[in-house]
């Protein structure tokens, strides 16, 4: 009787793959929507601002000449096409935003949903359902695809709306292809993140691998853009995106390698998910090791020991990039100086037009990117401290003779030391790259440019520690939010007339782009003081609050 009643109450509540797909979609939709809205705001405000600042065709041609011949700008944004039209500007700008914002988001969510969930032990709960590892992985990729579609939909609506502006003026049909181009990097790096999750044993290493692929793609694309070796654009995923050229000269043929790479990486991820054991990875760590007790004598040294791989990866990546872009600097400047309108632009920028000045301008743009990296390191350090608390590692220390103050200030000191080390690495490696060609650039200029980045990192760390004390669960979001906000204001503010109070909320407003211009040491000192004050307030609150789990 009772069995009958129970059977009668049973009902089918979903197909396992569909459930996993919906579950993953639900967990990623919020960040996808946030990302898409940020993309929409940045692109719309930038294009509208461009139209306001350069209302006539003559203004736009002049602006295009300046932008098109700035090697530093080209490293960051890629080669522009038809910048004499507003649509050309919109494409150039939106694709860059789509690549930068979309790719980072995509590999972070893919590695979190796949490897992160597996490491945390939650993935096995899903696999305990009536499914297989491959089907579950495919379901998760389906959920991630849903989030990508939301990103695409919002991008398409935004870009269609921008096209309807009188001075911009492009049709809705091409706008859909434009939106597709803008999200195409996110599609590729989501698949790459999924594949990296199968290859690497931890989420951090999977994300690191995806980031390395992005870094190499970016560097190759930059080399293709600023040297005569334009063929390099054909061999890098970010070069394929650049060559789609929506609106101005559509080349949908480049969708083929984009779709091909995404499909191969995505299917590879699903195939590998079924091939390996749960918890295992293609790149294996040793499961046993002889004890190495060096550095395991206190909380700070233990932090060095347990995070040294990550620290070395940051230093290595920045060192390699510094050398690469340093070596590229002379070539890039030579290429631009040989172009007809370059001299005029460089004269405007540096007031000199010499090779040294234009090299400094180029390197200034590279150091701006490095400053973003340094700030990202500072944000990740605050996030790592929060993760230690949330995951319970910190309990192991605090239930022993380690005080909260000692732990927190030790980690803050370590993060600052590594930030200074990263800055020095950037300066020295850049010098090694630049010094291959005589250009009049002094070593001291690069050291100053490196030091110039440190206050921004310390301020970001300060915001992170302040958040750790006040709202621990939002530490990572707020710390990275400072970078995103500053970047957004920098981008929006540079083309439009934004209230100076709003501009002042961006860290970059207070930092000079050395060595192109002399560092603002006084503003830097204020940033450092503010950062330290924020750390002190955060530390005070941290000492008094309860530890908070995830």
């Amino acid at each position, binding site marked *: 009787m009772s069995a009958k009643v129970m059977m009668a109450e049973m009902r089918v509540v979903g197909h396992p793959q569909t459930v996993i797909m919906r579950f993953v979609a639900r967990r990623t939709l919020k960040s996808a929507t946030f990302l898409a809205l940020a993309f929409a705001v940045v692109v719309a405000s930038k294009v509208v601002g461009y139209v306001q600042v350069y209302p006539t065709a003559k203004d736009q041609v002049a602006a295009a000449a300046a932008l098109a011949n700035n090697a530093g700008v080209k490293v960051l944004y890629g080669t522009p096409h038809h910048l004499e039209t507003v649509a050309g500007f919109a494409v150039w700008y939106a694709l860059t935003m789509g690549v930068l914002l979309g790719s980072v988001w995509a590999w972070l969510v893919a590695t979190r949903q796949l490897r992160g969930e597996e490491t945390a032990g939650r993935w096995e709960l899903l696999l305990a359902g009536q499914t297989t590892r491959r089907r579950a992985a495919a379901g998760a990729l389906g959920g991630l695809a849903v989030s990508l579609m939301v990103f695409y939909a919002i991008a398409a609506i935004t870009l269609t709306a921008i096209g309807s502006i009188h001075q911009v003026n492009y049709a809705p049909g091409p706008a859909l292809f434009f939106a597709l181009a803008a999200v195409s990097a996110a599609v590729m790096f989501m698949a790459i993140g999924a594949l990296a999750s199968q290859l690497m*044993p*931890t989420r951090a290493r999977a994300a690191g691998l995806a980031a390395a692929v992005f870094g190499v793609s970016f560097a190759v694309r930059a080399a293709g853009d600023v040297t005569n070796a334009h063929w390099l654009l054909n061999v890098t995923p970010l070069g394929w995106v650049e060559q789609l050229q929506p609106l101005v000269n559509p080349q949908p043929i480049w969708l083929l390698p984009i779709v091909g790479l995404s499909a191969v990486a995505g299917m590879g991820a699903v195939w590998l998910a079924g091939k390996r054991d749960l918890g295992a990875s293609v790149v294996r*760590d*040793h*499961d*046993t*090791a*002889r*004890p*190495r*007790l060096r550095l*395991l*004598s*206190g*909380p700070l040294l*233990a932090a060095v*020991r*347990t995070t040294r791989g990550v620290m070395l990866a940051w230093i290595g990546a920045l060192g390699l990039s510094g050398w690469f872009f340093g070596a590229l600097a002379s070539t890039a400047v030579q290429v631009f100086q040989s172009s007809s309108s370059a001299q005029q632009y460089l004269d405007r920028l540096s007031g000199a037009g010499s090779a040294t000045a234009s090299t400094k301008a180029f390197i200034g743009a590279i150091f701006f990117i490095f400053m973003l990296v340094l700030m990202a390191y500072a944000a990740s350090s605050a996030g790592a401290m929060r993760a230690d608390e949330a*995951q*319970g*590692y910190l*309990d*192991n*220390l*605090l*239930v*022993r*003779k*380690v*005080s*909260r103050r000692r732990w927190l200030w030790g980690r803050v000191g370590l993060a600052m030391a590594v930030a200074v080390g990263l800055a020095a690495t950037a300066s020295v490696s850049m010098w090694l790259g630049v010094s291959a060609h005589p250009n009049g650039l002094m070593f001291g200029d690069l050291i100053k440019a490196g030091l110039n980045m440190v206050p921004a990192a310390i301020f970001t760390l300060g915001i992170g520690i302040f958040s750790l004390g006040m709202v621990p669960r939002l530490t990572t979001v707020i710390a990275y939010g400072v970078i995103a906000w500053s970047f957004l204001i920098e981008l929006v503010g540079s083309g439009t007339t934004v209230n100076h109070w709003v501009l002042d909320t961006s860290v970059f407003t207070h930092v000079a782009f050395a060595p192109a211009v002399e560092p603002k040491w006084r503003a830097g000192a204020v940033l450092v003081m503010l950062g330290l004050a924020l750390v002190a307030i955060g530390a005070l609150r941290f000492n*008094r*609050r*309860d*530890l908070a789990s995830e």
Partner: protein
Amino acid sequence: MGMESAITTKGLTKKYGSFVALAQLDLEVKKGEILGYLGPNGAGKTTTIRSILGLIQPTSGSAEIFGIPATDTVQSHKRLAYIPGEASFWPNLTGMETLHLLGRLHGEMDIAYRDQLIKRFEFMPDKKVRTYSKGNRQKISLIAAFMTRADLLVMDEPTSGLDPIMEQAFRQTVLEAKAAGQTVFLSSHILEEVEALCDRVAILRAGKLVELGTLSEMRHLSSVRVEASFDTKVPDVTKVAGVSGVEVHGHQLVCQVQGPIEPLLRALVDAGPKTLLSREPSLEELFLSLYGDNEVKNPKGRR
């Protein structure tokens, strides 16, 4: 007076908004004793332990470890070691590296005893933490705490994930600690473990301490079960003072008695029993008698 207390809490209270996780806890754990700390899920056991360890700040009241305020974590933690029910360790360190680090963080460890414990718990120290099962990770916590020979061992579900053989090893180690004069504060759901090890038991419910005493002192809370068989007719004991739950199966009688057992014994002996069996309540029965009903049977009137 005289004997030093290992743990003293006075009016220890922890609130989360309007939710009271721990209410006015007055508790004293004497030096050298093993105190069992019991309560259903959400009763406030872990909140008590995290307050004692200084991981959370009490809303009001205080806690002291050997007279040192629990808020002075550097000084108070010199004298204690903690075994959590589930610890997170650094996944890329080996078991031995983790034990070394935890020992250095405590400041003192008995290396010979550590090696003895590694053998006793059949622990493989060369493997990386991420490869350990839950039980093996728990062994790290156990060895790391016992090897310090700290004056006070604070345990929160310490045998979580251990197999029965390892649980026996744990009990042996706890008794060694007691023999060495160490104090043990043992929060556990394994009542048999608490019954076998503890000198006194404290029972918590909804954030309030409802009982504290030795097992024999607490047995008044539950009925004694009495079973008797007769050759003749089973006597009617339903009217006897304190008797309840009378069941008669042929010549067999089973009943419960609370309070003085003498009136029941007199009635049974008068009827000439063939066999007579009475058994004191186990800790499990005591626990269930406290939590089986909606209202706590509490002579002091506390909830």
